[in-house]
């Protein structure tokens, strides 16, 4: 069951991933993602009946921290790397959301 990606499929995935791709990338990724997933389909031939999934190899331990107040990141430091900070207001500025 080889997966075939059309440009429309790639466009749909790109929309989910919030990625703007150009025409060349749409063609390239359609081919490459198809190749990679065709290879990755080998996992579907493995019998995993009754096998629990492993999300992480972390060894079980309690990692909760105390529910106590701690200083957070200083506002100026938080804004220091912002592409368009509104420092006086203490805000990140973005293009308008509503038309």
């Amino acid at each position, binding site marked *: 069951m080889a997966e075939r990606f059309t440009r429309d499929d790639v466009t749909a995935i790109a929309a989910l*991933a*919030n*990625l703007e791709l150009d025409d060349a990338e749409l063609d390239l990724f359609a081919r490459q993602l198809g*190749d990679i997933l065709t290879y990755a389909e080998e996992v579907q031939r493995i019998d995993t009946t009754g096998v629990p999934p492993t999300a992480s190899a972390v*060894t079980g331990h309690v990692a909760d921290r105390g529910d106590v107040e701690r200083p957070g990141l200083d506002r100026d430091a938080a804004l220091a790397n912002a592409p368009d900070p509104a420092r006086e207001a203490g805000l990140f500025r973005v293009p*308008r959301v509503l038309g």
Partner: protein
Amino acid sequence: MTIATAIDIRDAVRSGRQTARESCQQTLDRIAAVDPLLHAFNTVVGERALARADAMDRDRGRWRDAPLLGVPVALKDNLCTRGVRTTASSKMLETYVPPHDATAVARLESAGAIVVGKTNCDEFAMGSSNENSAFGPVRNPWATERIPGGSSGGSAAAVAAGVVPIALGSDTGGSIRQPAAMTGVVGLKPTYGRVSRFGLIAFASSLDQIGPLTRRARDAAAALGAMAGLDPADATSAPREVPDYESALTGDIRGLRVGVPRRMMAAGVDPGVAHAFATAIDALAARGARVVDIELPHAPHAIATYYLVATAEASSNLARFDGVRYGFRATGDGSAPPTDLRTMYTRSRGRGFGAEVKRRIMLGTYVLSAGYYDAYYLKAQQVRTLILRDYDRAFETADVVAMPTSPMAAFRLGEKSSDPLQMYLADIFTVSANLAGLPAISVPCGFTNADTAQGGVGLPVGLQLTGRLFDEATLLRAADAYERDTEWWRHTPPVATPR
């Protein structure tokens, strides 16, 4: 003559034979001499390093017992450094200056190490050749028309070229071990949870681990000892006591059971790599190790499993780069800037990320999407369990598992970059340790002589040993014992001259 190790430098500074400033200045001079050729560094912090060295030299009493006193170190550029640009070799973070230090970095500095710079890598640590850096590739010190491996290629090249005795890397599917093998140095990926990931720019959070690249196993032991242990800032760091790794280096590996998964290596391994590996196994046996055959039946599926799991996690982790709080934001580029929020997001990400990062975000987004989750992501997580069980079974009859680190030596720049799947397949021997959370080390074990165009020098080959959870001590002991019987670590690439 050999290049000074971290321990040599520490002892020299401690005894007063050398100042921390002299140690640092030597490294800075080496960077100036070789980095135009290698491009191992994204950022060099000479003044900061010398100021820190001077502070140590002024206050020798306070620093006398520091285990890495005056030792210059380089950091992969995906490790956050407070006040020092941290780019992950991405246009997305080209100007990013973190407000915090990674815990591993802070601990190395507390141990007396001096950060001299940030090393080039594959963008967001995604790659096996270092060709995915937004700032250009790193070159292999042994043959500069070849890749140094990846993704920690700059760290590996810097150590191989004798610039620094210790560099930190991160390893999600082999990104410490594979470049270590390809540049002829030691690379250690600790157990998942052994070293805090706080301040490591996340790629795949269930697989990522920080570790050292060094010329000698003993330096790796010293670096790991300085970094390891519980960190309240990383909930996945393990509340386990950190052993004295240096004292584990007894040279005694009598009776150590070395498991070799022969069936897995039956095909697809370069003959020069296979020969070096077989000779290395003989050397371990000659020192008293017992070689046993083992099976890892699901290991051949590790690459497919890895690229499903890792890309899924990456697509989630990299969602944070949206051009709002930090990082690149697409502006006009001559045309009008994005006037709505969504276009600002998609264009910033489309232009801020390179091709391989976008490819992996796309793949991860797809395998997590409705209708495909069970067939790909859930299935991969189940196979991950089977791979884990394979290792559990192997460790019933073996104490360590031995494989070549990479099925091939360093390839030429551009040789594989047009076919991502071929590039992924080269990770066959490294990815399963990440999926299982196990510690693994790569040690130089010889050279291929296949390419006579290299003037008979050949290219470095790595021996990989994988151990039980939290049993880095056994890996380091075996690696150190192997070094005592071999002289591969003495070899230096053409660009390296003694410190």
